């Protein structure tokens, strides 16, 4: 069947009327599908958030959030992630206008900020474990490490993805498939920042609020 293949080749200007124009371009379909995945990912995070909210007081006599969390670190982490979300958006603009240097530059800064975020988070985790506040200490800490660690794993996956995408840009140039993947990556990265907003509010700020 070449119908589907041919349909997305047709330029949208030729067609009229949403829904009557035939299959949407592949870029729209792919990004929409990825959007659905992201929402399901957020639903998974909501389960971890719910577990954390339920277990936040179950410290089993161990340290509480107010004793463990350092707001300075969290503020820097938040700044890193927010700035990397911004540079990721600028990188996407560079991709849309096919500027190689701006794309690499935006990706490099995005990667560096994401890596800085991860390094800070890893240091925080290592510190907590070293002080006997590992995930096995209490239900509160199990929920904390599950929630924040899951976000950290997502950021790690995002960094690997970004590195792979830059290799693809270098090898394949701005092919349509590469552009679609970069759009999906930008969606992923922005969604991670949205989850982090909920995370630093619920875990770190509400945890230490007077």
């Amino acid at each position, binding site marked *: 069947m070449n119908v589907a293949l041919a349909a997305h080749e047709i330029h949208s200007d030729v067609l009229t009327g949403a829904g009557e*124009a035939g299959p949407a371009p592949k870029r729209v379909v792919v990004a929409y599908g990825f959007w659905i995945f992201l929402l*399901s990912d957020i639903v998974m995070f909501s389960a971890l958030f719910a577990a954390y909210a339920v277990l936040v007081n179950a410290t089993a006599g161990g340290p509480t959030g107010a004793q463990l969390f350092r707001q300075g670190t969290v*503020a820097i982490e938040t700044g890193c992630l927010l700035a990397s979300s911004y540079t990721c958006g600028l990188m996407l603009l560079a991709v*849309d206008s096919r500027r190689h240097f701006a794309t690499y530059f935006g990706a490099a800064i995005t990667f560096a900020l994401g890596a800085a975020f991860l390094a800070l988070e890893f240091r925080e985790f290592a510190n907590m474990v070293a002080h006997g506040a590992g995930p096995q200490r209490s239900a509160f800490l199990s929920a904390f490490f599950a929630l924040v660690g899951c976000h950290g794993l997502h950021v790690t996956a995002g960094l690997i993805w970004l590195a792979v995408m830059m290799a693809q840009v270098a090898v394949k140039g701005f092919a349509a498939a590469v552009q679609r993947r970069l*759009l999906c990556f930008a969606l992923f990265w922005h969604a991670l920042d949205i989850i982090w907003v909920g995370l630093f*509010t619920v875990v770190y700020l509400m945890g230490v609020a007077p």
Partner: protein
Amino acid sequence: MTEARYDRAPGDSGRALTAPRSEVLFYTVGLALAVILTAISFWVANTSLLWGPGVALGLAVLAIAQMGVHLVFFLHITTGPDNTNNVLALAFGVLIVLLVIAGSVWIMANLNTNMMPSGDLMNLHMQH
């Protein structure tokens, strides 16, 4: 007919090719708003000026506002007709998220109050 012929992909502004300058400005406005909201959040959590029990609610409102800023300025989710699919998917996602979180918290709070053995009788359940 210059109206939307297709739904727009989430994350696509639809203007990036025609006006990249204004797109950069758009992202920058989003960043500025997000930074302001984040700063207010950190201030609210640390100040003693505000009424204590209201702080958590205020933080929740600020977080939701910031998520809205991210959705609009970074993910380009709009109320336009070419965005209906994206918004509907988002609305469904938000519904499930609310059900999961509110439902869990509600049920577990109920269990805690109704099934908590009296304190000295059983110290296994060490909540609070």
